[in-house]
């Protein structure tokens, strides 16, 4: 009987261990998996009426002038040209024509690109792992906690419709579309490619921006 109870206890412990690890199976395998592309739009905007746009030739660094407590990280300008060219190429593909800004004859849309990079922190606990065949699953003991630092970067592409009446109080910039490319930073070249791919994805998942009339 005692032997049977030992077997039962072993079985119970095994099931309990499986229960603990199986609630959330799957692990993140690379920093690229933290990347997201989010797009938001104003449902009241009739995008089909927009044909022209103006775009600043500079990427705004949101953290410029921010206090040190904001945990900002300097953002390189080495890839600004590629990023702005990518946005222009996507807008052209969707049927928009870029024009110079003229206050007396404003374009249908004002497109802006901005960027920010910040330090983030997380506290993680000790973890469990698969190991040797004779001791297949174990958890580190004693449990410990440690702080990890990570750096995130975000590039915003925004569209403002200057014709929209700005009746909000206090006044708000009438952004009618925003594409947000966010991720955990890696090497500069990898980051740049991820930004370019992310901008492409932002436009790809916003089919309502297409004003070509289906000619693309």
């Amino acid at each position: 009987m005692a032997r049977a109870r030992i077997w039962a206890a072993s079985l119970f412990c095994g099931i309990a261990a499986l229960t603990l690890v199986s609630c959330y199976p799957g692990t993140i395998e690379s920093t690229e998996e933290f990347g997201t592309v989010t797009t938001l739009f104003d449902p009241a905007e009739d995008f089909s009426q927009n044909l022209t746009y103006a775009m600043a030739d500079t990427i705004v660094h949101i953290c410029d002038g921010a206090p040190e407590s904001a945990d900002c990280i300097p953002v390189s300008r080495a890839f600004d040209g590629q990023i702005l060219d990518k946005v222009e190429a996507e807008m052209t593909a969707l049927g928009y024509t870029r024009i110079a800004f003229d206050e007396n004859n404003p374009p249908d849309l004002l497109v802006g690109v901005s960027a920010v990079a910040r330090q983030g922190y997380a506290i993680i606990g000790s973890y469990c792992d698969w190991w040797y065949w004779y001791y297949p699953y174990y958890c580190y003991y004693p449990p410990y906690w440690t702080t990890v630092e990570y750096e995130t970067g975000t590039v915003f592409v925004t569209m403002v419709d200057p014709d929209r009446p700005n009746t909000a109080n206090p006044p708000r910039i009438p952004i009618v579309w925003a594409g947000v490319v966010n991720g955990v930073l890696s090497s500069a070249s990898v980051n740049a490619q991820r930004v370019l791919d992310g901008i492409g994805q932002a436009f790809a998942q916003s089919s309502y921006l297409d004003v070509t009339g289906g000619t693309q």
Partner: protein
Amino acid sequence: MKRAFNIVVLAAALLLGTQKSASAQQWLWGLAYGFAAPTGNTKDFANDFSWRNFTVEARRINENRNMSFGFNASWNVFFEKSNRTSVLPNVPGSVTGTQYRYINSWPILLSAHHYFGHPYRPRPFIGLNLGAYIIEERVEIGLVAAHETNVHLGGAPEVGFAFPRGNQIWWLSARYHATLEAGHVPEQNYFTVSLGVTSH
């Protein structure tokens, strides 16, 4: 090896506090392990063939050993990792990225079973399980996660085959779980196939 295996099965029953009943009606206590396949909304959320399916079962069988009533509690996990675009809730927009999607489902059900054929020979049975499903849906994307847990009403018709073996009854059964919607989570559906053993 065979002896050890039998001891494990017996021990599992002992762990659950089984006692041989002196009455004609007997409580059968058991464990089952199996797999699950999602359908419908569950499949849309997490398209996963899951091996994480576990059931604790209790059945009180009548004197003629052709009917039983009882209860069971299960646990199923569905997991999907995919790169997909999803519509944002509450705001007009979309998000794309690597998504980790989880469904943890804990059905707690009352059961009724009818057994055909000779009680001490292999025989088929049918059953109906009704009760509550505690279902947690969780999405992790980028550095954020969203989850929702609700209690859904639902049930699971069941067909199976029982194999008496000494004081134990081994059984193989299939259930189709269907729940009503709850909170922001629509109806859920999934199949389970389980291999279990009961003892008295």
